[in-house]
């Protein structure tokens, strides 16, 4: 398989999988098609001990991709809501979620755009985001990297707690707050700079730092030296992705299902 032989969606899946590499035996929840397939890829390769569900309420021996199923999966345990709620407190879960807004402190929003009392756009509500954020590790997938998603100030309604000292009695978040990586259509970031500031970990092939910065509402930390390029999924990984997602749902996530490698655009003058 050539370097060009993979899609952006498959690149994102392989990066999502990386989020779970060293998690050990924990529950992994990937919200949305690509994080879910990513969790499956991790389970089928380097993180076989993780627990994943079929999307409703059962842990399955093998990962289950989105959409129609040819065969019913083997069930290995029950994952009804009471079980999952109880499990959160153990910290043995890693969720990869897709908020609508994310800010420089890692605070995330899925509730409303605009004023909370009378929003411009009402979405789901906070769901379990507040609890998730302070009880177990979390990562993020933002499918369109722009300033509407990566906002300049705080997100409109903080559903997930982040590393904003002003939000805490003694300036310190609860010990369980552990934000890991951010995967977008342009790059991979983490919270590894001083004071948990967001820094670029790798740029997707053909993407320049300046383009990412221009599409982000706050300053990003640029790593020293040459910025790594997000590694391409291997042929073995691509084959496993096809097995987890035989419905090819992944092809419908990004408009026109672009390739994983693109020519550099938006280079700053």
């Amino acid at each position, binding site marked *: 398989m050539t370097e060009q032989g993979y899609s952006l969606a498959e690149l994102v899946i392989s990066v999502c999988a990386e989020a779970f590499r060293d998690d050990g035996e924990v529950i992994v929840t990937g919200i949305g098609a690509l994080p879910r397939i990513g969790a499956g890829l991790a389970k089928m390769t380097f993180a076989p001990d993780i627990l994943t569900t079929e999307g409703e309420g059962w842990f399955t021996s093998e990962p289950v991709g989105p959409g129609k199923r040819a065969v019913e999966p083997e069930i290995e345990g029950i994952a009804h809501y009471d079980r999952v*709620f109880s499990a959160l407190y153990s910290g043995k879960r890693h969720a990869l979620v897709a908020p609508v807004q994310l800010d420089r402190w890692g605070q995330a929003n899925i509730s409303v755009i605009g004023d909370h009392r*009378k929003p411009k756009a009402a979405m*789901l509500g906070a769901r379990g985001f507040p609890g998730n954020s302070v009880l177990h590790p979390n990562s993020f997938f933002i499918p369109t990297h722009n300033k509407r998603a990566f906002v300049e100030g705080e997100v409109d309604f903080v559903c997930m707690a982040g590393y904003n000292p002003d*939000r805490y009695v003694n300036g310190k978040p609860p010990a369980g707050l552990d934000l890991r990586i951010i995967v977008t259509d342009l790059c991979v970031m983490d919270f590894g700079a001083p004071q948990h500031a967001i820094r670029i970990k790798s740029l997707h092939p053909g993407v320049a730092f300046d383009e990412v910065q221009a599409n982000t509402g706050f300053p990003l930390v640029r790593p020293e030296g040459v910025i790594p390029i997000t590694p391409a999924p291997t042929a073995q990984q691509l084959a496993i992705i096809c097995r987890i997602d035989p419905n090819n749902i992944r092809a419908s996530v990004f408009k026109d299902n672009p390739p994983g490698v693109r020519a550099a655009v938006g280079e700053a003058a």
Partner: protein
Amino acid sequence: MLDKRMTLDEIVDQLQDGMSIGIGGWATRRKPMALARAIARSNLRDITLISGYGGPEVGLLAATGKIRKLVFAFVSLDHYPLEPHFRAARQNGAFEILELDEGMFHYGLRAAAMKLPFLPTRVGIGTDIIRQAGFEFKMVKSPYDDGEEFFAMPAIAPDVALIHAHRSDQRGNILTMSFDPFFDELLVRASGRCFATVEKIVPTDELNMRENGRYNLVERSLITGVAEAPFGAHPTSAAPDYQIDLKHLKTYIDSAASQEAWSGYKAEFVDVSQHRYVASVGGAEAIHAAPIPVY
């Protein structure tokens, strides 16, 4: 002999303007929709709707102007994540809201069920949930050596709980046969009274309780009344008896397109008896034909 059987309308007659009403189920699963429709048809007003894990009952009661205040963690139709009537009402500022986290809601019910004023938790710390205007949330410090500051989640104690289950006898011994009971037991324990609709009321021996004990939601002394309402959760599911009706949910969603669309939907599916409703959505056979959904 104890007989708690009631009709849907008799249950609604027990509700009063301004009451707080807790709703069981989860999003598109085991929602007491026949009761929600009966409330929508009634003169009941100004209710505080407590639906932590909200589904189409929220949109229906929003669209019919019944809600004064909504307490929720989310409102979703699962396969169609955005509930259009809920969205429209929220965007119009149609009612007061208290937005919570799913776990905070759970903890609020647990506190009420334990007759405690609050329970301490880390959930909510660092978020806007505990900074909502009009709500005075408080923190509490651990009295032990750790000295950690917790959020004090206040008890959630609805005046009345409404739930839908699969089977009951006339004394209110209830079975919820789905693999996931959600948090209906806690809701019942947190609430002053509970009325349940069930698919079928049967003699006690037909509950086969020795086999089905794990599906027995709660002791019957907490159940005030039961109404037999076949397909009473439709268009949400009461699996394994029947599944979510995605086709009807789409019809429901389309009803938010215009005032005319809503009037049409309301006339055909809300302002009718439960019996007529079942016929309108295609009858028992069509409801049973809905496939097991994939998530």
